[in-house]
């Protein structure tokens, strides 16, 4: 069954038509990825689902409930967490406080357990829990951003360019963690420029080009698709 179903979504920035009538869905238990070049509308799509942007028309149904018109701060309460592009951790807050903010919508009594779970996933964060997030390295900040998003115990975790700006070894590590989160039961919607990596772990994928979905299929099929190989995988 579909956990997230987006139909005929249109998003504008002023007069610029950024997202053109796209439809896609994410089923329970899947890893779905949106790939595409810079400016294709990947982040715009996630930000619209996350409530930061308002769609002009179209429907977003999550868990049989419409999300259109839901304020961003209420979206997370419904079980949908967005780990935004560029990490956007709170640089002046400690690692522990960042995680606590991730659990803002949950009762205080459950926070300690979730923090322990995140430290389990990211031992590095545990070592640095007292440190201010601004002093972490890029990879650590990405781990913190993902851990923070997991603090809300989301049914669907949306990751926006988690590998951006990271060294190749860290990219591998981040993708391992994504697979790990998925195997532990989190459904994942992943936006990536690193198409190779994204397609290799995805169950299904959609290719975005200037605001439209131009191709879709299983991750495996798209990895071997000629047009995708030419455009995103370097031939």
């Amino acid at each position, binding site marked *: 069954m579909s956990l997230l179903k987006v139909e005929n979504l249109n998003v504008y920035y002023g007069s610029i038509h950024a997202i053109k009538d796209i439809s896609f869905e994410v089923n329970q238990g899947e890893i779905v990825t949106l790939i595409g070049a810079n400016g294709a509308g990947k982040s715009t799509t996630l930000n619209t689902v996350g409530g930061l942007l308002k769609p002009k028309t179209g429907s977003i149904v999550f868990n049989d409930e419409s999300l259109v018109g839901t304020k961003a701060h209420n979206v997370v309460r419904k079980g949908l967490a*967005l780990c935004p592009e560029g990490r*956007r*951790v*709170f*640089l002046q*807050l400690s690692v522990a406080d960042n995680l606590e*903010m991730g659990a803002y919508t949950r009762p205080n009594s459950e926070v300690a357990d979730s923090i322990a779970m995140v430290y389990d996933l990211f031992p590095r964060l545990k070592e640095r829990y007292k440190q201010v997030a*601004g002093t972490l390295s890029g990879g650590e900040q990405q781990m913190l951003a993902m851990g923070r998003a997991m603090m809300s115990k989301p049914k669907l975790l949306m990751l926006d360019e988690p590998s951006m700006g990271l060294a190749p070894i860290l990219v591998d590590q981040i993708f391992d963690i994504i697979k790990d989160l998925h195997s532990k039961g989190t459904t994942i919607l992943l936006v990536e420029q690193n198409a190779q990596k994204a397609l290799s772990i995805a169950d299904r994928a959609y290719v975005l080009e200037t605001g439209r979905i131009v191709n879709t299929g299983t991750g495996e099929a798209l990895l071997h698709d000629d047009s995708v190989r030419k455009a995103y995988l370097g031939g």
Partner: protein
Amino acid sequence: MLNYLITGISLGSVYAIIALGYTMVYGIAKMLNFAHGDVIMIGGYAAFCAGAYMGWPTPCAILFSVFVCTVLGMMIEKLAYKPLRNATSLAVLITAIGVSYFLQNMALLIWTSNPKSFPNMVSFIPSINLGSVTISSTTIATIAASVIIMIALTLFTEKTKMGKAMRAVSEDKGAAQLMGINVNATISVTFAIGSGLAAIAGVLLCSAYPTLVPTTGSLPGIKAFTAAVLGGIGSIPGAMLGGILLGLLETFAKAYISTQLSDAIVFGALIVVLIVRPTGLLGKKITEKV
């Protein structure tokens, strides 16, 4: 000498309480609420009306004043600043100045320009005699209040969930929303706290300088803003330090140099500090790694 020291610290503590309000709002909402001084004045009038006019007992009058200012602060934020959330900071600044004049003229209409003689509302605290010098009840109340408020605010922003959410909002509103934090409600609470502090500052200021007119809050407001910048705006201990330093400087300048020149000396000191340390004495040096 000792007398001046005590007067300076007392005056500085008033500045500190006002500066804490400024710094709280600036630190979270990233805007300079230039109407803060006038909220203090309204707080003074509210306490005056409740205490001297209606004859309410002092604690009730102070509470009433805090209540009035809290509501007023939230209303100002909602009506004047919230519509400008995405506007340039200059637009917000000018609006704040507009709100400041609005409040002064509203007070002029309601209470006229005739000075009201404010009763000392903290005289229930005994004064202390130290040989040749006496520490008045107002001084004791002011110093105690400023220290308590500083500690309470520090604990609130460092330790409580709401306080941490405020810091999160100050840094990145979008990311804060993604955490489920209601940004508008958080900023509203910030204004409520800042304005509640203004009421306390109003009562203490008017207890020390009992002439209450519609412009009572203006100069202390500007001085306290200076104190907040001196200490590092956005920093809670900075506001306290800046306030006390400014009070001492002003008092000693008046005593030993010249009464007329005291303000010039105070603002001159600010300029020197800002040249040497642009972020103020305790201003945050933001450590970021991108």
